[in-house]
């Protein structure tokens, strides 16, 4: 009788443990996704200021400034939809546009020396690092959750309580390369 009770006790404890761990992992995925969102918002908030500063020195780089505005809008829309792919797409666009702006700035010494521009560049670089870190954390959390949902015996509990696999946040490899700016 004692042995039976002990076995039941262990099974119940294991069940609680696995369920709690799935809940924790799912919450961490949500939390880390919100973390990416916060950092992306921080970056998009810096864009209008950057556009105004660049306009003052390189007003005729219209195409570039427009692409920056478009990318910003895309990322805001992606964030509002809460869709991982839409956000990643917006982020890719914005990263590309920002790289172009900083590459072009090399040709405008006054702009490059502007204190506001330098501070914005520093803030954007730091935000870029935070976004990359948030993305890494999110993807690790998704990997933990997806593995837990797939492996036995936690897959039984996952299917019982409707835990579903989450999508990874991927950045297109092409956008990581340096942008080639032509004049």
């Amino acid at each position, binding site marked *: 009788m004692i042995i039976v009770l002990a076995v039941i006790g262990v099974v119940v404890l294991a069940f609680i443990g696995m369920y709690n761990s799935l809940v924790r992992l799912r919450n961490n995925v949500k939390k880390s996704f919100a973390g990416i969102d916060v950092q992306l918002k921080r970056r998009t908030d810096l864009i209008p200021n950057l556009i105004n500063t660049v306009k003052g020195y390189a007003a005729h780089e219209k195409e570039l400034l427009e692409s920056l505005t478009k990318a910003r809008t895309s990322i805001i829309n992606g964030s509002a939809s809460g869709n991982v792919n839409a956000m990643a797409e917006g982020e890719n666009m914005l990263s590309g546009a920002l790289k172009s702006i900083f590459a072009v700035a090399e040709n405008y010494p006054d702009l490059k020396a502007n204190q506001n521009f330098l501070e914005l560049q520093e803030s954007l670089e730091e935000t870029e690092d935070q976004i990359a870190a948030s993305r890494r954390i999110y993807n690790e959390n998704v990997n*933990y959750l997806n593995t837990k949902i797939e492996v036995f015996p936690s897959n039984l509990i996952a299917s019982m309580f409707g835990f579903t696999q989450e999508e990874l946040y991927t950045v297109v490899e092409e956008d990581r390369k340096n942008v080639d700016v032509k004049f």
Partner: protein
Amino acid sequence: MNHSPQFSVIADFVDQFFLGIPVSKLDLSKHKVQDVDKARQLWDPTGNLDVDLVDMRSAKILAKVNFFKENPKHASKQRTKWTLIGLLIGLVFSFLSPFAAIIGPAIPFGLLTSYFKNFGKEVVKIQLANKNNWLYDPTPSRRKHHLLVSKYPQIFKKGNQDQKIDDQFWGINTVHEKVYLFNAGVFQYSVKSGKNNSTSYTTHYLFIQLQKELKCEFLLSPESKSIFNFLRSKEIDTESEEFNKMFEFSYNGKKDESALEIVKSLSPAVQTKLIELARKKGPFNVLFSKSVILFLFKGSLLRNIKTNMFKNVEIDAEDARKVEEEISFQVDLGTSIAKYLN
């Protein structure tokens, strides 16, 4: 700063008596830090750093290297001399035990071999310090430990005997055009349990000075491994599953206020850097306190040094690379964390 003079006195006696090095005649002036003014800008977490004294100690070691270079056979001559003396003493006492004839020469041979091995390590570290414009103190200090315990007891109040600080580096590291001051060293201590039992521990630490003061003081330590971990909920969780598995928090003050400040300080970039550091160095403690981050890692700073001052009075290239890689890695990663806290 008083750096436990007993260590220097003993070292000088060993050099003079056993190794036949004319300590008082060594020319230290040639080996002093070139840019003393720059060295004076270095920072120590206790607020006590006597650049001239520390520099003099490194200079003494470099002067000894110079002496061995000028007298290449001196080291092996001394070893042979003391081994023979040991053999004679052993033979005299062999009537007590036949082993005396073996132990007699083995003791001086072993001691001198070990001395030169340690000497080689010191030289590798001094050269690394010189290359990077850092300052290095080869002399252990008990006083520094006392000072650190009074300021950072969470990290340095360990052991109940033989606590000392050794192998200290002071330097400047630049990350993205921002300058960070650091102090690294080895912290050794023993725990005496019972009459004759004592266990020795070696750890190494790294202090990095921040450019602003943190609003909350907290300690991250390796997460305790327990089979019941899955049942307990942690007081503070970050968004990273891996980070939460690696570290647990301790702090002073009210939970709500502290948790907010801790989570603010541990931005995603800081978390991923700490994870990277833990993957490379294994579990470690890190204290965020006022304008300082303090890391405490297990084990000694350097292992498996191949430099052999008996064979060749030169540093092994592999040693130099390993030492530089090890110290630079933790300094670079530590300071890059500081960047996100400023």
